[in-house]
Structures are given as structure tokens and as C-alpha cells.
């Protein structure tokens, strides 16, 4: 087997393993979605989603994450072309967009908590904060991973194992975008309709 072919084969094996992890993460999110779906009307006399969610704000968050999913895709393409500088550029842009998303989400959370609508207010808010917060935690982990990759790529270049990590990071980030689309539709859009 030629070297390039062997590397590709390895990348496929590693990304498949990572894919299986992502599938288990899907089960985690599914149980949180189920909890939310069951508790969505249990507001205990408190505010419902209709009164709490600021939809234009959420739309901006969604667009930030969608765009970041696109930019990391372009980063993956750059990595497959061996274009290190382009890859670093796309990774940095993804990081900035992801950070913007996270900051907006945390600002929204702290506003809700300051107004007395924290997770302890009602079953609805407990499940809301758990579901959206778990996604936010994943985003934070993804951001940390992007920083690590930026350092590794700029110091060590695009070697075999680094390509594997970039491929896994891409999968992870796209997956987070897919989960957010479900949160946007099920929690926010359905919450206000």
C-alpha cells in the first residue's frame, strides 16, 4: 500500500471511531430533548418560552453557528489540499464565530437568571437550561479543541496524525451545528408558536 493511501485508510478508521462517539452523544441529546419535550408546559406559574425567548437574538446566534459550520468545512477542504495557511485562517474564523455564539448564549442565560428565570424556577426552565447548556458546554469544548489545533498545525504542520484530528474536529463541529438546528426548531421556534 502506498503511503498516501495508507494515511487515508487510517483517517477513515479514526473518523469512524469518532463517528461512533458522536452517535452516543446523539443519544445523550435525545434523552435531554425527551426531558424537555415532557416538561415544556410545566412552567409552575412562571414565564413560558413565548415570553422568555427573544427570537431575533436567537436567529443571530443560529446564523453565527451555521456560518461557523461552513467555515470549518472550508478548513477541512484546505487541509486536504495541504494549504496550511488557509486552514489556519478558516480555523481562526470558526473560532471567532463560535466564540460569538457562546458569548451571546451566556449573555442570554445570565439575563434570564438575573430576571429570576433561572433553572430552579420551573421544570420547563430546568430542562431548558440542561439541554441548551449541554450544547453550550460542547461548544466550549469545541472552541478549546480549535485553539489546540491552531497551535499544533502552526507548530508541526499537516502531518498524518494532525490530519486525523482535524477531520474529527470537523465532524464534531458539524454535529454541534446539527444539534443546534434541532434546538432552534424544537425549543425556540415551537416554544414561541
Amino acid at each position, binding site marked *: 500500500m502506498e503511503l498516501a493511501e495508507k494515511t487515508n485508510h487510517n483517517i477513515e478508521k479514526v473518523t469512524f471511531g469518532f463517528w461512533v462517539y458522536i452517535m452516543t452523544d446523539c443519544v445523550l441529546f435525545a434523552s435531554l430533548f425527551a426531558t424537555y*419535550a415532557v416538561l415544556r408546559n410545566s412552567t409552575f406559574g412562571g414565564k413560558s418560552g413565548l415570553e422568555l425567548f427573544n427570537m431575533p437574538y436567537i436567529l443571530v446566534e443560529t*446564523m453565527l453557528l451555521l456560518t461557523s459550520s461552513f467555515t470549518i468545512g472550508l478548513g477541512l477542504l484546505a487541509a486536504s489540499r495541504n494549504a496550511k495557511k488557509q486552514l489556519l485562517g478558516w480555523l481562526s474564523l470558526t473560532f471567532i464565530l463560535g466564540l460569538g455564539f457562546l458569548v451571546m448564549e451566556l449573555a442570554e442565560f445570565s439575563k434570564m437568571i438575573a430576571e429570576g428565570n433561572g433553572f430552579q424556577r420551573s421544570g420547563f426552565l430546568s430542562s431548558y437550561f440542561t439541554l441548551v447548556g449541554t450544547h453550550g458546554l460542547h461548544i466550549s469544548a469545541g472552541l478549546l479543541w480549535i485553539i489546540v489545533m491552531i497551535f499544533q498545525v502552526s507548530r508541526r504542520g499537516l502531518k498524518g496524525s494532525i490530519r486525523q484530528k482535524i477531520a474529527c474536529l470537523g465532524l464534531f463541529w*458539524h454535529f454541534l451545528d446539527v444539534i443546534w438546528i434541532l434546538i432552534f426548531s424544537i425549543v425556540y421556534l415551537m416554544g414561541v408558536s
Partner: protein
Amino acid sequence: MNFKPTFKSYLTGFILSIMLTLTAYITVVNHFLCGCKLIWIILILAVIQLLVQLTFFLHLGVEPKPKWKLYTFLFVVLIIAIIVGGSLWIMSNLNYHMMSSPDLMNQYMNSQSGL
């Protein structure tokens, strides 16, 4: 044969996602539809966008055979359907039984108390 993602495929996925997101958002915010219909429209748009992103971003289903990624994904879809569908079914059934008057409720609880 191996599928190679291109700039074009990412761009298609991105534009389709944005269009689907905006369609869902505008339909909801402007109250074009109400009640049950709206929920279905949101769900359908979400599923379409899910498929778009799975195809164009996660490249599901385009890998060479054997398609292990696709098979594991389909299995997880089954598990998710059982978890989410089952939870909603059980809990709405419980809600249904809890809706009766307090007297009836006590009677029901007494009759069902044995474990």
C-alpha cells in the same frame, strides 16, 4: 470510488441551510400559520435541514461500501425514536390519567396502589 467534498458541496449545504432556517423563522415570527399546522411545518423544515447538513457537511451515505457510518447512524435514529417517542407516549398517558377530579384520582390511586 471515493466521494470528495468540494467547495461547491459545502456552499450548497450552507445556502440551503440558511434558506431553510429563514423560512422556518419567518413562518413562525409572522404567524403565517397557526396551531398544529405550524408545528408540522417546523418539524418538516427541521428534518429537511437535518438531511441537508448530514449530506453536505457530514457526508453521510456517500462513503464507499460497507457504509458503517450510515448503519450506525440508522441504529441511533431507532434508539432516539424509542427514547423520545416512548417518553412522550408514557408521560402523556400519565397526564391523561391524572386529569380526572381529585376524588376520582384518589380512587384510582387506591385501586392501583399495589405493586
